[in-house]
């Protein structure tokens, strides 16, 4: 097995996701409903209240990065479901007999889910503009923000592969997926600044990779404050590397 084989398999997995999307986009639209409600209802109402110190930003603008990230994470966590499903079918067995390495299969599927997640964000993006969210009109910043989205959702896809290897059935996985995302969302700076949280939760927020992703995307898309960007990206990369390694190891359990 060569690096070339592994790269080829990763690209093939990305191509697979894009082809699936081309045939059927309904899932992407239905998954857009919830985040759009967050922005349109929660964001608009809370903007009126002005109870949360957002550093001068309208509240809807403040939460847009978090909502974008939450929606991409949903996509990638439920991607683990695909892996569980593929274990029940023969697809996974077949991928194991391909020349690429096992970790290429894990990373490839995670990256493919990252791509799918970015497409998901692309749908919410224009809706946010229509709702009056003011993005910084800088193509480099926007591209960089989507790159961050891609990195964080690829990482969460690996989380979901890891969880999938612990859960043996789809039903259990569904429950866990729900139980995982919302607490992470609330224990981050997506909806309110960390300083407003109870101290215990602040510690959780500090080790929550979502916090760093939200900070980076908020800086790039909304506030223009890039002072934390280097730390944010470093934190996300560490998270990715660790979780890819863990997922690759646990993947062995799925095989037998």
């Amino acid at each position, binding site marked *: 097995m060569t690096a070339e*084989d592994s790269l080829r398999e990763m690209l093939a997995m990305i191509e697979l996701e894009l082809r699936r999307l081309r*045939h059927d986009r309904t899932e992407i639209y239905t998954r857009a409903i919830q985040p759009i409600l967050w922005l349109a209802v929660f964001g608009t109402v809370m903007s009126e209240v002005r109870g949360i110190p957002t550093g001068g930003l309208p509240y809807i603008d403040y939460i847009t990065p978090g909502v974008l990230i939450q929606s991409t994470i949903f996509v990638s966590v439920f991607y683990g479901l695909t892996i569980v499903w593929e274990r029940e079918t*023969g*697809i996974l067995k077949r991928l194991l007999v*391909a020349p690429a390495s096992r970790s290429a299969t894990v990373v490839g599927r995670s990256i493919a889910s990252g791509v799918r997640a970015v497409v998901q964000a692309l749908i919410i993006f224009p809706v946010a503009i229509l709702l009056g969210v003011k993005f910084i009109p800088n193509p480099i910043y926007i591209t960089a923000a989507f790159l961050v989205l891609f990195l964080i959702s690829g990482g969460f896809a690996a989380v979901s592969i890891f969880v999938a290897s612990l859960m043996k059935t789809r039903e259990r996985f569904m429950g866990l997926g729900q139980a995982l995302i919302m607490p992470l969302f609330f224990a981050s700076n997506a909806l309110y600044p960390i300083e407003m949280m109870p101290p215990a939760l602040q510690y959780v927020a500090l080790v929550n990779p979502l916090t760093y992703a939200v900070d980076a995307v908020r800086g790039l898309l909304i506030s223009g404050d890039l002072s934390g960007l280097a730390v944010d990206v470093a934190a996300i990369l560490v998270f990715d590397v660790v979780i890819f390694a863990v997922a690759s190891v646990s993947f062995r359990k799925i*095989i037998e």
Partner: protein
Amino acid sequence: MLSPAGVPGMTLAIETSGLTKTYNRRTRALDGVDLQVWPGEVFAFLGPNGSGKTTLMRILTTQFRPTSGEARAFGTDVVRRGSEVRRMIGYVPQETSVWLDITGRENLLIYSKVYAVPKDRRKGSIEDAIQAMGLEEVADRMVNTYSGGTIRRLEIAAALLVKPKILFLDEPTIGLDPSARKAVWESLTAFKGECGTTVFFNTHYMDEADHYSDEIAIINRGRIVKSGTARELKRSLNGEILRFSRNHKQEHYQTHGQNGFDEYAVKKVRELDLVRDAAVSGSLLEVYVDDGERALPLVVEALWSEGVTFDRISTARPTLDDVFLRYAGSCRSGRGGDGG
């Protein structure tokens, strides 16, 4: 059986020795499998549910390691040199292995990339595979509109993309109706005639093993209990089969525990001089004998003396079904009884 050394310069397509596999330190799925498959052969691996067929195939296709023992494909160790082995085999798992929400051709395209078919040969391989499996008309339709038989042919087509030296098929026709089964085998036979690929398939359909294989091995509880050509296997049961049946309704047939033949009586029959073996399956007792005319009175007497009744006696020459029941079936009905 010939030893590999018997034909100098000839490498076996598949060779295993002392292969065992224990899952979770508890389930012993393979219990010392020795196997030889010659190049160009169609090899049928026959066994009841849970006998270890899939486990063996997954080891041979390098998906996981055996607990002990060795296996080689064309001389290459499947454990130590798995990546080389992967380049020369095609594999179709027992369960569905194509994506349903894209077209058949797209599936082949993705798999050709995953399996590292060189770019300049990709298009040709895909066309060849589509043709070999007769998928020309459906290739551009979504797979979720295919019938079961067509999905199976697509899966086999995906395994042919790499022009494999060995094709592994895990129960290739399970769940297909007779005409779909026939279509699958006709395509496979035609492909085989052209390319001379070695085919190794798992099945529990006797007739498929009988019609399409050059050689058969029967596995039961992780052990190969018999191997040879279909004719050899049938001849190994030379003589006759005496069938004693009870006139039970269909549902009774399933629960032979209460309605079948008494274990002790069967044991007694088995011990008779003229009887080679006896096996129970449902409400049917099969007694294998060399000379039916002489053995029949003795068997009848033995059964009556145990108070066993029956409604009908018939005699038959062995079929592959009988071979299967004899070597793999009797253990199932005598669970916990005789060990071999």
